């Protein structure tokens, strides 16, 4: 089981960010996602709020802050939607933020390959929670896995590696 208190371990580096950077990036991610909706399929390929949630969760390595960041981003994403009930993305991103922050201290999150695999895994975790919520709580049909979701997750993972290296620049020098 994951130990959510890994931030306190002395050999784990907790990255600090410039003040307001997290909020600004989260806000921009939501904004860009809304913009991407104009271009249809592109918005489905990339889930920028998810990538931001994962990145800050992995970097901050604080499950509580990762969870609350995921909750905030998820609820805002729900709020910007039209037909999905509030809480759907909220629940999924709450859990993703928590898990990302919990495992961030355990594995190497700086290596591009591990980042690729982590994003790929979190994409499917997020999708699984969403599908569960839809099927169990909302009684709506949804698929856990499709070929299209696989392609989406691969594209998201590849894009996420590039995005993470960009977001690394917002870190305060240790």
């Amino acid at each position, binding site marked *: 089981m994951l130990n959510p208190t890994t931030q306190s371990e002395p050999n784990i580096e907790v990255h600090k960010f410039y003040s307001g950077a997290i909020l600004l990036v989260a806000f921009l991610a939501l904004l860009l996602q809304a*913009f991407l909706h104009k271009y249809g399929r592109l918005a489905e390929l990339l889930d920028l709020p998810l990538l931001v949630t994962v990145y800050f969760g992995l970097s901050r390595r604080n499950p*509580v802050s990762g969870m609350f960041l995921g909750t905030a981003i998820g609820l*805002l994403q729900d*709020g910007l939607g039209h037909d999905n*009930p509030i*809480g759907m993305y909220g629940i999924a991103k709450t859990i993703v933020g928590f898990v990302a922050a919990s495992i961030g201290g355990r594995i190497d999150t700086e290596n591009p390959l591990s980042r690729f695999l982590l994003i790929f895994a979190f994409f499917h975790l997020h999708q699984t929670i969403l599908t569960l919520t839809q099927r169990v709580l909302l009684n709506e049909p949804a698929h856990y896995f499709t070929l299209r979701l696989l392609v989406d997750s691969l594209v998201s993972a590849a894009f996420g590696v590039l995005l993470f290296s960009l977001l690394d620049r917002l870190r305060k020098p240790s």
Partner: protein
Amino acid sequence: MLDVYSRHRPYALLAAVVLIQVLMLAFQIKREHDVRLIRFWAVQLMTPVERAGSWMTSKVDGVWSGYIDLRSTHAEDQRLKSELDELRIRNHELETQAGEAQRLETLLNFRDAHPEAPMLAAQVIGASADPTSHTLFLNRGEHDHVRRNQAVITPDGVVGKIVEVFPSASQVLLINDKDGAAGALFETSRTQGIVKGTGDSDPVMDYVSNDEKVQSGESIVTSGLDRIFPKGFPIGTVESAKPGNPFQSIKVKTAVRLDRLEDVLILLTTQDIAVKKQAPETGSAPQVSAPVPQTEAARRGETSGAKKEETRSVPAHKVPPAMENPAPPATNPPANPAPAPAAAAPDESH
């Protein structure tokens, strides 16, 4: 106990947060209520920025497509110009065809309205090379039974007469040519005179006494005395009238635009064509009423008593010489009669 709580505090928080959201979902589903507050604030937070972003995007897009990304603009410009030229030519062709169809329809309607008066539609194919001569060439000739001194008209009024006939063409002397003329009378006062060309664009009406009251805009129609043009057919209207010596100087505005003729009718008879003036508001070609054939008696001037009284004719020696059966005796002979233009009459010498 406290140690256990602090160790599992993150999980407890996670469970609490997830539970709250699950309850929120359940609330929305069961009551079919929307958590409007979250949606409201999310939208309030994002839309101003989205709006600004959208504005910026459109501006950047405008600058990009309008100033930077012009690689294909020149080629497209050339293509569009070429397309525009083609469309202009096509449009001109269609307009020409439509105009021609309309003119031909007018001619056809006019001809159909007068089945008793044989007419031949003809196209203007040329004009005289002499700038002082007002003549036209038509695409009808001897093969079409065209003869000299046949009247050339349009549904609007008198054009001229045939002066030369060739196997497949003929020449028309327009009414405004210096040798052109037609027996005429004022439609309302029935005063007779002769409309003759001066070489200018507008002909004049001669042999009208100075005592006669002539008003601007008064209609002038053919008198039929020249035996070329049927009686009562429009020639034009009075443009201006002023006293002269020995007759009034009356400038006539022709009913037909003689400088813009394209299609005409050659009248193969001198039978009268009754023409009824159209209501002024319509302003188009005159409506044709039931034709009233001119009897030989009428041609000789033996009209009904009332009409005879109204009609004041030009004396026989004032009308064009070829009018062999002139109008009734003059009631108002001019003091110094002038010689009438010879071309108004059927030219038997040709």
